[in-house]
């Protein structure tokens, strides 16, 4: 569990990096520094962009706060009204099961980037109760974090190692059509976690995600 000290350190670190970023930007243009607009976007193999988001209880979560504790972090883009998310919470319990299997080593954060004008906005309130979700569901209603991670679908999964490097981005599994026999299914997130825990490189760092589109405003 994070201590207040850890939270403070995390917020301070986030603030410091934000200041540093601004300092780098202002006197010299981004292009002159060799940085592009994409500098903030998540890239497999690079440090995962930091963020602060509130969960449904109003509590703030900072990514670097978790990685600074040496935890693996999984980000799960979600929209409980999407049939593909429902598949993994109702027909199967893929997300909860994977989170539970590694709960001491992995911090699981669901993120909902649905914009406030969309029909699906707020669906996590009932889903958390109905589906018995115990990990935080972070609310990203202006879509800023989603766009930083280029989250396109729900679900869209990211795994960040304990050094804060993004090591996996893509689908939850290899079975978009839900047709494979159980022994042919591969849970890519579970696979990445297992490999990280064994000190191995992630063998499939990027896959094409499947699901409904994330409902950004613009």
């Amino acid at each position, binding site marked *: 569990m994070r201590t207040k000290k850890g939270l403070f350190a995390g917020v301070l670190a986030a603030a410091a990096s934000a200041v540093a970023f601004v300092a780098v930007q202002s006197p010299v243009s981004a292009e002159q520094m060799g940085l592009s607009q994409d500098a903030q976007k998540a890239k497999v193999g690079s440090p995962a962009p930091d963020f602060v988001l509130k969960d449904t209880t109003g509590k703030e979560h900072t990514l670097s706060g978790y990685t600074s504790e040496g935890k693996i972090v999984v980000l799960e883009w979600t929209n409980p*009204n*999407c*049939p593909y998310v429902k598949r993994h919470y109702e027909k199967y319990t893929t997300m909860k099961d994977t989170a539970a299997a590694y709960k001491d080593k992995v911090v699981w954060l669901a993120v909902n980037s649905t*914009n406030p004008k*969309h*029909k*699906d906005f707020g669906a996590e309130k009932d889903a958390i109760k109905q589906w018995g979700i115990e990990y935080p569901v972070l609310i990203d209603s202006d*879509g800023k974090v*989603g*766009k930083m991670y*280029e*989250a*396109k*679908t729900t679900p869209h999964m990211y795994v960040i190692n304990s050094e804060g490097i993004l090591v996996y981005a893509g689908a939850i599994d290899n079975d*978009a*059509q839900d047709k494979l026999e159980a022994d042919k299914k591969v849970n890519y997130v579970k696979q990445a976690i297992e490999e990280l825990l064994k000190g191995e490189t992630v063998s499939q760092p990027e896959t*094409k995600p*499947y*699901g*409904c*589109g*994330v*409902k*950004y*405003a*613009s």
Partner: protein
Amino acid sequence: MHQDRTGARRCRCWNALLTRGFAFLAVFALLPAPMGFSQSTKGEPPAAVSPVPKNLPGNAYVKVRVMSEETTLPAGGTGYIAIQVKVVDGWHVYWRNNGDSGAPVVVDWRVPEGVTIGECQWPVPKRYAQPGDILDYIFEGSVILIFPVTVSADIAPGTEITIGGYVQWLVCSDVCVPGAAEIRFPIGIRSASESGKQTPFAKVFAEERGQHPIPMTDPAAKIVSATWDELALVIRCEGAKSMTFFPYEAFVTPQPKEILKSGHVEGAEMKIPYDEKALGAAHVVGVVEITKSDGSIVRVLIDVPGPEKAVTE
């Protein structure tokens, strides 16, 4: 939800050698309610592996019907059937490559031994861009999917076979819901030496084929070229006013980068960047749809080997 079923109209098609064939009309299938199997086991498809889910929310926005080009299929030859997917206004279904989100229309066929249904012949979709740089490939209104049916020479002319299919789709407006339908229809087999009789739907097949992409070897595609400039696929077309490129799905071809920007141009040349995964690929595939200055539309299937080198020395 109602299920509307038209009966098959029998027509006797005699020839010197054989017995009857059957005319075939459209069969509407909204909700799956599988009919009992006929008594004869010959020509029956194997039973469905998984139960057909009923009352899926996506069934409210989609009607599926199946058509045959001719009233019979030739033993030892190939005939054509099609599935029409009609979508309520404001909703859409997806192409073979759904793009960033969504899921393609999928048909699982169940056919008797000696019958093979080949790959779907898809029309060209529309690009559908959503906030967050999400690009999908969709169909609105109606889409017709044509399938070749090949029949073994061992099936006796005069046999009636049953073709079964399970169609699944994701239909979306600003929300998405899944749907499914089961279809089954009888069709007769004729001798290969006999010519087929067209159904009233034959003209639909002809119209559709006129809008399918043509291969690069087709004389009408001579004006189109596709070459590599390092890792960029450069497609040019003489006299083009605008061009759009639709890559096939990740399963069959390396995927282009930045397709939202690079996949449509106003002009006669497009440069589509790929990454190193395209190097040495046997096939880089997609369809280019070109509107020429005279307003005519040309659709060409681009299927080229991947680039040899990333950077020319």
